[in-house]
């Protein structure tokens, strides 16, 4: 465990040295300043009128939470795009000649090395998302005097979504010793495949009457991590304080993560350097 923590800590330093964290933090600070400026000039009366008209505090809460999500959701997508780009080279750099030889000559198991790199990458994204989400949450909560703790679940869901994609990046890094394949596959899943499968499953699936096509879609749907559902449905439900209606996207995405990491460890344990 100690070795994993050392590698994790030094991966964080690597991210800082490569200005990944500073870039993220800069982006978050700009976002928070814009949020602060917009919220500062927002007239509360309109919202309060809605509250008075309906006399329902729940609607007021939902409006506030929606404002928070309106800011965080697109930004978290952008953050994930940047995070994939920034973290994709952590493993390939570790595998470079002269670097990996030294690491493997130390009393550290190969799986500890890999987990350390993995947690390091996830920790970088977690800290950035925490800063952004907590900042938006604080500004809006102060302004409207409504402290929606559930909104902070976004930190967990966005980090989890990244953790799933990062496991694929790690696997591709081990396989190719490069960052390109992992990055391309992650972008493909995040931007195209997952949203497309969600639309297929919800809108088009019922219109298909061919069982083979349905089975193929089902197989792909359950294998591919459900980043679109995690960020849209589950994140929104949790942020609004609603119970999660379906945990299947979380479970199948987690299984994808486990499969990628186990494959990575097996490959790494048997690879010559």
């Amino acid at each position, binding site marked *: 465990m100690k*070795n994993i923590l*050392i*590698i994790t800590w*030094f991966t964080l*330093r*690597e991210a*800082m*040295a*490569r200005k990944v964290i500073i870039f993220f933090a800069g982006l978050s600070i700009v976002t928070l300043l814009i949020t602060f400026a917009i919220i500062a000039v927002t007239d509360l009366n309109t919202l309060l009128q809605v509250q008075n008209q309906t006399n329902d505090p729940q609607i007021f809460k939902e409006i506030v939470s929606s404002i928070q999500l309106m800011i965080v959701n697109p930004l978290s997508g952008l953050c994930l795009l940047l995070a994939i780009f920034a973290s994709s080279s952590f493993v390939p750099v570790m595998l*470079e*000649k*002269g*670097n*990996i*030889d*030294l*690491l*493997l*000559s*130390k*009393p*550290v*198991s190969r799986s500890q090395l890999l987990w350390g790199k993995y947690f390091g990458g996830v920790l970088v994204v977690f800290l950035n998302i925490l800063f952004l989400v907590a900042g938006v949450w604080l500004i809006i909560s102060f302004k409207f005097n409504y402290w929606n703790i559930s909104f902070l679940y976004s930190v967990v869901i966005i980090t989890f979504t990244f953790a799933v994609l990062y496991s694929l990046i790690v696997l591709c890094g081990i396989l190719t010793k490069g960052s390109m394949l992992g990055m391309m596959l992650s972008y493909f899943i995040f931007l195209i495949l997952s949203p497309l499968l969600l639309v297929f499953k919800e809108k088009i699936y019922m219109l298909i009457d061919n069982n083979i096509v349905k089975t193929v879609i089902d197989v792909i749907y359950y294998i591919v991590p459900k980043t679109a559902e995690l960020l849209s449905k589950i994140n929104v439900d949790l942020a609004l304080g609603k119970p999660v209606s379906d945990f299947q996207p979380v479970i199948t995405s987690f299984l994808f993560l486990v499969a990628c990491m186990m494959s990575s460890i097996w490959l790494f344990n*048997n690879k*010559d*350097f």
Partner: protein
Amino acid sequence: MNAIETNSLTKIYSSSFGKKKITALNDFTISIPPGTIFGLLGPNGAGKTTLIKLLLGITFPNAGNSKILGKEVSDYKIKSRIGYLPENHKYPPYLSGKQVLEFFGKLSGMQGFELNRRIDEMLDLVKLEKWKKIKVKAYSKGMMQRLGLAQAMINNPDVLFLDEPTDGVDPIGRKEIRDILMNLKEMGKTIFLNSHLLSEVELVTDRVGILNKGKLIREGKVSELTERKQEYRIRVEGKLPQTITENLLAGQSITVLSDGAYSLKLNDLNELNSFIDQLRNNHIIITEVLPLKNTLEEMFISLIYESDKESVQ
């Protein structure tokens, strides 16, 4: 218990589709006792680095096994007693010299006061104490090499693997590294040295192994390997009389060396003594009698040449 032990270690590299196979190491067996400085010599591609990588568990063998300090190398915990300086090592450029040692020290299981004390000690030893807070990207090749040596010794290892340790180091730095190695030997450490600089290997090693095309073609003490059998250098006042040079027996020969001394080839030690008696009876003053030796380089080149010739045949 030997410090390093290998038994029929074999490594075969395959191309991507497994069609072409290259034997990097072939049936390599060796035992190195503790407290030895062992030099491994060989031309480029002979398998020297592959052997170190196998011994450190960086690469896996196709056959055979190896032990370090009595433990199988697959047991990664034994590496807390090992130090390694790879050829072309890379350190994170954003770390300072001190941070590099801190990172690898921590990975080797050190911490706290003990680690800090050891870092200062090592930086002082390799003369980088003034550079400890400077990022390594500003270091010269020689400084990186010295930092690498400090890194390899940070955990006070019992066995040290050094792959081209003096690469890029100036002559004074090389002398300092040699002194460090001799000091480590006195402390009972085992050092496994890969180097192209044969003159340097000759100066520090107790034993050497010659590797060619993955095979160990010779192993032994430097003095044994470089010795020319029954060949002596003899110097006298003036010149040897013709009667002596003409009366040589079968198997004996005498040649004049460039510096005026004579090279004498005999069949055994008795013949040397008889020859000296003969000179003394002729009232010739002998000023020098020395057994002739090859340099390590001469021995190395001739062995590799012979080995290549045999493999062609």
